[in-house]
């Protein structure tokens, strides 16, 4: 990359060729005011606030101006100030801004610029146009009265989330933000990720659960890692007087563009489930509350008496908690498992059997945006790993061929080039694909053999041929396995296909902490004397429910009430995901810091100490 030297306000600076003046200035600490520009998106030069003087003769927006050798830029001439003021005033007076009751008062980029530029009166009368408000959505409000048409939300929805829900509707003064073909947001294709409200510079799109809870400057900020799925997005969590205000994605993480999903951004704010503060022991249909120390003694006593003990932990806990819990359980002679680890054990076994090397597994999921073909087994990824789903959509929008195979509805139907619906297990289909890859296209013409492999599955051989054709054409293809696939043969055939085709693999499981890959786990007794379940903050897992139902005595350690705690004989409090601190491993195998967002409110301060003490009581 060649460098270019140019002048900004008399200062010589160097930049990479092809870079914009705005981006070069930012790197040198020169702040050019802006409203529509956002680093995660294309520049559209909509707001005209970033105007600069070029070579003493022209005025151009810095976000759309490419650096050139010897360019002379001035950012603060009287003329620039005059036009910037005029543009700001026109932006403000064209809409219905009422700072005094706006949710974003104090957190508004437009307001900041109005103040910065000393706009204490208007030169032109205000318009008072009639604008719609859409508050149909569970989490998001779109108030077009405060919209400045910067288009950040529209671009974020398309370029960052790959969803294309938001768009501009209407023309001229009627121009406004609409969802799909102007339907209420609730009824639209919105995936509720909330990226639009994170990038909105004004109060036009805002979070229903955070509104009027405080401006960011008055909040405490904690940077942490989201533990709702194994993508492990970096989060910025705002709290005020110990209460959650807002959760945002870290925009410094450029690949994700700072996005989160509904689980990470909104669910913790909506959660009103009753917290568990005390130990509850149920004896003869009556509930008895006891101290944490008594609860620990009781648990140790029950574990001592039990012969067959099964322990199961959520996959959304930190490494430290998983370590100390498994240690304590093993001391008491329990078999130990983590939700999601079963799938991992199957994979390990398959890899050993078919002699598969680790190099097939991708260590950076953003690679899906570079693949030319994606073969996606199980489209539930859209709900289980939404940010990964956004990368898949972005890839498909940029020309990557997407092949989806699912037992149910194809949740990528807008984007998939080939969509095959096939009952689970998908093993026969994959076997057929394997066979065609191995033996050539002729083998599919033998229809009796094809149908003997497919059995009762209704798949058209043409689709199989298409899949094979695509895989053969591709130079960089990635196979993604969703977390709902748990039968061994499907996994084996998919892995064999990857080996045969030289494809790369992304294999997902239910656990958000991929520490389970190095943690020793095993299948647990299905009908144990004692079951000890350590739950996470996610919804109840089926495996855990089943285990408790089949146990003679069940201990559930959880932070909030759920079906699990209702059924348990002994309930012990645990920390919430915001009270916990430690480390977690994401899908790329990177260790991420999980910070404590709030001080533990209950008697329990450290789960690690609790389990160490439990281990000692053997």
């Amino acid at each position, binding site marked *: 990359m060649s460098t270019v030297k140019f002048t900004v306000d008399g200062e010589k600076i160097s930049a990479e060729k092809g870079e914009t003046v705005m981006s070069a200035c930012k790197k040198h600490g020169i702040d050019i005011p802006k409203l529509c520009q956002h680093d995660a998106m294309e520049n559209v030069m909509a707001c005209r606030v970033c105007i600069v003087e070029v070579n003493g003769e022209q005025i151009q927006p810095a976000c759309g101006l490419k650096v050139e050798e010897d360019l002379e830029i001035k950012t603060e001439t009287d003329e620039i100030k005059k036009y910037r003021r005029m543009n700001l005033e026109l932006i403000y007076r064209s809409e219905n801004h009422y*700072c005094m009751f706006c949710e974003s008062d104090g957190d508004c980029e437009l*307001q900041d610029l109005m103040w910065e530029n000393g706009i*204490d009166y208007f030169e032109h009368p205000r318009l008072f146009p009639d604008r719609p408000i859409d508050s149909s959505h569970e989490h998001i409000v779109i108030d077009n009265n405060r919209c400045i048409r910067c288009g950040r939300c529209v671009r974020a929805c398309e370029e960052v989330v790959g969803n294309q829900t938001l768009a501009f509707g209407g023309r001229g003064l009627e121009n406004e933000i609409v969802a799909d073909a102007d339907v209420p947001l609730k009824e639209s294709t919105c995936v509720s990720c909330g990226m639009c409200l994170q990038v909105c510079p004004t109060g036009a799109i805002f979070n229903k659960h955070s509104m009027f809870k405080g401006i960011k400057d008055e909040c405490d900020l904690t940077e942490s890692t989201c533990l709702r799925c194994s993508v492990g997005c970096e989060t910025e969590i705002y709290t005020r007087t110990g209460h959650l205000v807002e959760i945002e994605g870290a925009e410094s993480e450029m690949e994700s563009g700072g996005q989160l999903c509904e689980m990470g951004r909104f669910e913790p704010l909506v959660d009103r489930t009753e917290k568990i503060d005390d130990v509850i022991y149920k004896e003869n249909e009556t509930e008895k509350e006891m101290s944490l120390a008594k609860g620990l003694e009781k648990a140790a006593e029950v574990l001592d008496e039990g012969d067959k003990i099964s322990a199961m932990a959520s996959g959304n806990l930190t490494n430290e908690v998983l370590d100390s819990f498994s240690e304590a359980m093993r001391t008491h002679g329990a078999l130990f498992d983590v939700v999601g680890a079963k799938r991992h054990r199957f994979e390990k076994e398959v890899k050993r059997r078919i002699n598969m090397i680790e190099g097939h597994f991708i260590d950076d999921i953003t690679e899906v945006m570079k693949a030319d073909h994606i073969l996606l087994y199980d489209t539930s990824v859209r709900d289980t790993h939404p940010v990964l789903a956004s990368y898949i959509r972005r890839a498909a929008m940029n020309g990557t061929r997407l092949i989806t195979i699912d037992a149910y509805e194809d949740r990528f139907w807008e984007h998939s080039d080939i969509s095959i619906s096939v009952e689970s297990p998908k093993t026969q289909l994959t076997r057929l694909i394997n066979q065609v890859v191995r033996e050539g296209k002729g083998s599919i013409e033998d229809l009796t053999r094809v149908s003997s492999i497919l059995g009762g599955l209704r798949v058209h051989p043409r689709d199989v041929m298409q899949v094979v054709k695509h895989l053969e054409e591709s130079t960089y293809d990635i196979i993604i396995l969703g977390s709902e696939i748990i039968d061994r043969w499907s996994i084996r055939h998919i892995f064999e296909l990857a080996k045969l085709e030289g494809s790369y693999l992304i294999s997902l499981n239910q656990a958000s902490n991929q520490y389970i890959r190095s943690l020793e786990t095993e299948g647990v007794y299905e009908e144990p004397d004692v079951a000890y379940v350590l739950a996470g903050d996610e919804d109840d897992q089926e495996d855990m429910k089943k285990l408790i139902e089949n146990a003679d005595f069940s201990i559930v350690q959880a932070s909030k009430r759920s079906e699990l705690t209702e059924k348990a004989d002994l309930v012990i409090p645990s920390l919430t995901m915001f009270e916990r601190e430690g480390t977690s491993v994401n899908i790329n195998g990177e260790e991420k810091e999980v910070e404590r967002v709030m001080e533990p409110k209950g008697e329990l301060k450290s789960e690690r100490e609790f389990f160490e003490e439990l281990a000692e009581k053997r």
Partner: protein
Amino acid sequence: MAEDKPTVATACMCGCSGCHMSFLDVDEFVKELAELLEFQSSHVIMDIKDIEEVDIGILEGTITNEENVEVAKEMRDNCEILVAWGDCACFGGIMTMRNFEPVEDILEECYIGKSDDESEIPDPEHVPALTEKARGLDEVIEVDAYIPGCPPSADIIRYGLEKLLEGEIPKLDKDKLRY
């Protein structure tokens, strides 16, 4: 009463008097101010409401009825420097939310639709008629200094008065400007 002290008159258009309340938050500065300024008339802190000739005229609130227009013009005619206090006076403020509907519809809704059977739309002979639109001061009269805010903080009000006493027209920006 010293002759050389600058004289001040304040009045409220259609507003909540919040800016005047905020002015009272300057606390003990009021005492100092009394030495430096002569309050000729003021709608919240004095009994005298009639506007006579003054050096500094201060107006709060939106222009939303015929009386507001009259008082604003009277103040403009009688003062040397006219100061707008608050978002209403500077930009129109929250009162401009009525600009989305025609005046007749608003009166109908308030006095007939949302009222009891005996209620009727006020006669403009007794109550000043509403203007077509609610407006900021400078759409009706010339304004010399703007102190926006909802309300402007006591510190900013004090800053504005101090600047005027120094013989300057206060101009707010950056940290001083809030609305």
